[in-house]
């Protein structure tokens, strides 16, 4: 049986969605430059008549403005001027703004912590490989909340969302996109349970004032609901590291105590017959249990112990948590007022938003239209595929005893669907 750490390394969160800061920056850069390129192509191809020479088209497509300041690119043949594109840092600013909007929407819905956090992570993951110039961030907020609810086992109705937000937005038009942009990785691990566990552990020490524990939990929880979601913490740190960082911001002493108690092992300086005092008591007991659960064979050597729960590791862990803490501290819950401030909006957000409206993707920005086109395209292709496979299909029928009666189960299914209406997928959010 693998340890929780080993299991975490099997998750898509680690395998597909953990990056170093430089990797993350490179991806965002890439997404931004690709979007410029694609949007340029699309603007030109939709504006130019079908007979426009190919060379005209390609010359621009392959020369995205390298200076990054998006100066209009006047076309010598009289084609439309290209818009001023968003720079990566402008995209980042807007993503932060829309993330804060998402959190506000989550507050408005009153969703559980996991839904809130999963939706935010989905949103930020989506805009890692997609530019906000390509897909509309405002609409993706509701889509992320909708899909986030589903991923956490709550299945809201679309109409419910539309009513709650008083919108006619076709939420489903973006659902598939968002799921695809998340590579269908619906599981997101969060720090909330880790915090509960840490509190249990702290209480088990027996010498910490209950009020202090409660205060720390409350504050840490509040931080978890905001700071890691507003920053890139989920891309860089594990849920438990995020939890420790939040706890450290809430009560540094308690976080350090937990870490000290966990990584307590000091290898005996002499031989194995050293005094029992060399191995702190509280740890040796729980270590034994953990080892049994871990299915490890035989006893661990001191070196092995030191590599897992030694003080050397402790210092590294503390370093990681400190770095995460720094990241979280840039977006403490109180910073919400920054993002909702009218003056900030006017001075910082609105200008970039205006810019965005001018450089958005002509083909993709309208999600409903995009979905309609994709469906049609797909169906046409599907039809031709089916026709081509028809002869094969007949062969299959001969082997497997004919087609299954598709009509009969269909009818039954409708009946089931009808019954389902009594219980329209659970309580309102």
């Amino acid at each position, binding site marked *: 049986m693998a340890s929780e*750490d080993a299991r975490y390394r099997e*998750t898509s969160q680690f395998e597909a969605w953990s990056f170093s800061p430089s990797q993350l920056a490179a991806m965002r850069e890439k997404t931004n430059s690709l979007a410029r390129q694609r949007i340029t192509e699309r603007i030109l191809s939709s504006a130019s008549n079908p007979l426009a020479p190919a060379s005209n088209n390609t010359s621009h497509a392959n020369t995205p403005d390298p200076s990054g300041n998006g100066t209009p690119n006047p076309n010598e043949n009289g084609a439309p001027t290209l818009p001023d594109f968003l720079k990566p840092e402008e995209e980042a600013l807007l993503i932060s703004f829309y993330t804060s909007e998402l959190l506000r929407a989550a507050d408005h819905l009153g969703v559980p912590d996991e839904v809130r956090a999963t939706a935010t992570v989905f949103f930020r993951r989506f805009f890692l490989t997609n530019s906000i110039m390509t897909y509309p961030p405002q609409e993706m907020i509701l889509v992320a909340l909708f899909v986030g609810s589903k991923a956490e086992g709550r299945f809201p*109705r679309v109409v419910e969302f539309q009513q709650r937000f008083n919108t006619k937005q076709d939420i489903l038009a973006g659902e598939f996109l968002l799921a*695809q942009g998340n590579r269908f*990785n*619906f599981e997101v691990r969060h720090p909330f349970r880790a915090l509960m566990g840490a509190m249990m552990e702290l209480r088990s020490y027996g010498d910490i004032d209950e009020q202090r524990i409660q205060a720390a939990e409350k504050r840490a929880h509040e931080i978890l609901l905001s700071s890691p979601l507003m920053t890139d913490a989920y891309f860089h740190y594990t849920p438990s590291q995020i939890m420790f960082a939040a706890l450290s911001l809430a009560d540094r002493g308690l976080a350090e105590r937990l870490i000290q108690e966990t990584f307590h092992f000091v290898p005996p300086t002499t031989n194995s017959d050293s005094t029992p005092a060399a191995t702190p008591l509280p740890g040796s007991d729980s270590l034994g249990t953990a080892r049994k659960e871990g299915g490890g064979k035989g006893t661990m050597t001191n070196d092995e112990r030191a590599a897992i729960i030694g003080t050397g590791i402790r210092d590294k862990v503390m370093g990681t948590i400190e770095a995460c803490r720094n990241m979280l501290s840039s977006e403490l819950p109180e910073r919400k007022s920054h993002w909702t401030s009218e003056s900030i909006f006017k001075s910082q957000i609105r200008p970039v938003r205006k810019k965005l409206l001018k450089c958005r993707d002509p083909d993709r920005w309208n999600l409903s239209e995009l979905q309609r086109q994709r469906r049609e395209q797909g169906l046409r292709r599907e039809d031709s595929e089916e026709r081509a496979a028809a002869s094969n299909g007949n062969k299959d029928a001969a082997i497997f005893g004919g087609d299954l009666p598709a009509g009969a189960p269909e009818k039954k299914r409708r009946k089931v669907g009808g019954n389902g209406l009594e219980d329209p997928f659970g309580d309102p959010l």
Partner: protein
Amino acid sequence: MANSPLVARPTDALQPSKPLPSSSGGTPSGGLPRSARGQRIAAEARPTMDLMEQMNEDEKNKYIKGKKLGEGTYANVYLGHSCLDASVKVAIKKIKVQKEYQDGIAPDAIREMKYLQKLRGHANIIILHSVFSSKDQNLNLVLEYLPLGDLEMLIRDVDHVRYGAADIKAWMGMLTRAVWWCHDNYVLHRDIKPNNLLIAADGEVKLADFGLARSFADPGVRMTANVITRWYRPPELLFGARHYSGAVDIWSVGLVFAELIIRAPYLPGNSEVEQIALICREIGTPTEENWPGVTQLKEYTVPSDVTPVAGKDKYMGRFGAVGSDGVDLLAKTLILDPRRRITAREMLEHRWWKADPKPTPKYDLPKKTAGAEEKAAADLKRRNGMAEDDDVRGSKVARKLDFGAAR
């Protein structure tokens, strides 16, 4: 405390941010900046793709779709194989847009993807290799290809398939390990039954169909009682319990065990009332004595004539083929009180596995070949968590899932 992440001491506390460059680097070079020459042609053949679309295309191109194995209202199943290695066969389950679910990607598809991703890496859980979307925005689940049908087929084919205690032990071992893995990862399957236990080419049994699965609920969060196909549904769910544990799956495991032995469903109730009556008659009437608190469950009703809990003798008469130890294990899976029912882990530590006869090696297990492929496809294209022909099975699982779980 068992759930505390702090209990299991970290083996490697440092998490170096080390993503897999191949899967996530986000820089698939193929198809991205194309040379000026030939762009026009390329663009017509394949419209320019975004990073996300390119990644999806790459995923899709890893597999070659072959003939259709089956067509259902919920999904079509195709045979396929890996591009890199044609011997790696896969089943591509293309989920259709569902008419009766108006709210986008259906819950069962979401659950299946989520939990198969979460549980991957265990020999007795069906592998989800990949998910990609086809042009018309349909989901395609690339699953491990399991050509030898399911346990239900073997159980039912009394005329052609013979098997004994050693075979049952092998199958039960694989099932129990699968369920242990689910529970150890805090996942409830909630639809264990013989036709969700598919058989791989090498005889390995794989738990499939995670369309009703969910994670363990946090304390105080209510879950729906309306899960698990009726014949395999434990008494706590029949009584409407909204807080429950892995014990619900264990009860189903016990009934699969019983069914393997007697080669017929052990408790085939035609309605919930009848199901409860059968449980009372065969296993014993749940009372405050054998299950403290049971009478508080919302839908607790039992026949007035109280049957005492069955002793080992009663089980020996019917299930003696697996020996005294086997019967002991069976009885422990069918303990009425879910808190006292054996856990998956305890099952694995039971002495039966070590007693004679030894479990049959998987390659030597009885197999059925005729019609197995068809059946396997039928299992996959079935709507998750639901038998296609309810009337024949007489045991549909309720679809009225409480998706909202009160908070």
